[in-house]
């Protein structure tokens, strides 16, 4: 059985599941951002797999580049916010930042 669409979808599914687990369990803000990056990467693998095996056009690759661009913007803003939290709370544990909890 040669490598087909399903192989890439399964790899992407595993990446997504691990990213979701990372986001759900981590209490370190940077760890959560890492989980988000895993999820974005799995979405990109899907885009490119469908682009190659289902359409044969380049639209999927263009979308993947947009996703990478937004991930870069998200990482820059997210890490700036994390640094701001660290300067305020002296920790980046997200359970310590509960000032707004009612």
């Amino acid at each position, binding site marked *: 059985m040669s490598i087909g669409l399903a192989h890439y979808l399964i790899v992407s599914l595993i*990446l997504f599941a691990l990213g979701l*687990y990372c986001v759900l369990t981590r209490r370190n803000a940077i760890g959560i951002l890492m989980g988000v990056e895993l999820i974005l990467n799995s979405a990109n693998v899907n885009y490119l797999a469908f682009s*190659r095996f289902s359409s044969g056009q380049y639209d999927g690759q263009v979308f993947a580049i947009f996703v990478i661009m937004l991930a870069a913007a998200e990482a820059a803003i997210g890490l700036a916010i994390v640094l701001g939290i660290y300067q305020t709370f002296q920790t980046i544990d997200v359970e310590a930042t509960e000032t707004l909890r009612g």
Partner: protein
Amino acid sequence: MSGLGLGDLAFYIVAAVTIISAVGVAFSPNIVYCAFSLLGTFMGVAGLYVFLAADFVAVIQVLIYVGGILVLMIFAVMLTHRIADVRISNRSVGRLPALIIVACVAGVMAKAVLGTGWHSIAPGTPSPSTYAIGNGFLGDYILPFELASVVLLAALIGAVVLSRKELKEE
């Protein structure tokens, strides 16, 4: 062709590297190990892009994810922990409920992946994709492309404003 060809073997190796590194990111108790596992994941995903005949996206992945985002993350890890703090905390809570949720979501998605008859065509021979992507950016996708530059500028200014030190006027 019967049996495991060289290309198939290479795919399985790259996929294994990607997934094992991702397991390291999700389960490692040390945030620094997580960051370096993320390196393996990003490089493995770039390898998958090469298998998918997306040479330009693979190079972009290495340049932006490995060269930009990962370095940024390692900087943030180093800046937000006291260096003398040997055991860098990376607490995980609620492992069991999270595992159950992830198992349910992954089960539904696996059923969808394996049970759907995806429209599939015979993949063409890999050819350089840069020309077509450039045409797409300046043709059909000109508006998202221009908006992307605005988003990046806003993100740049926002990150600077968020992370600078306030200078108090005397």
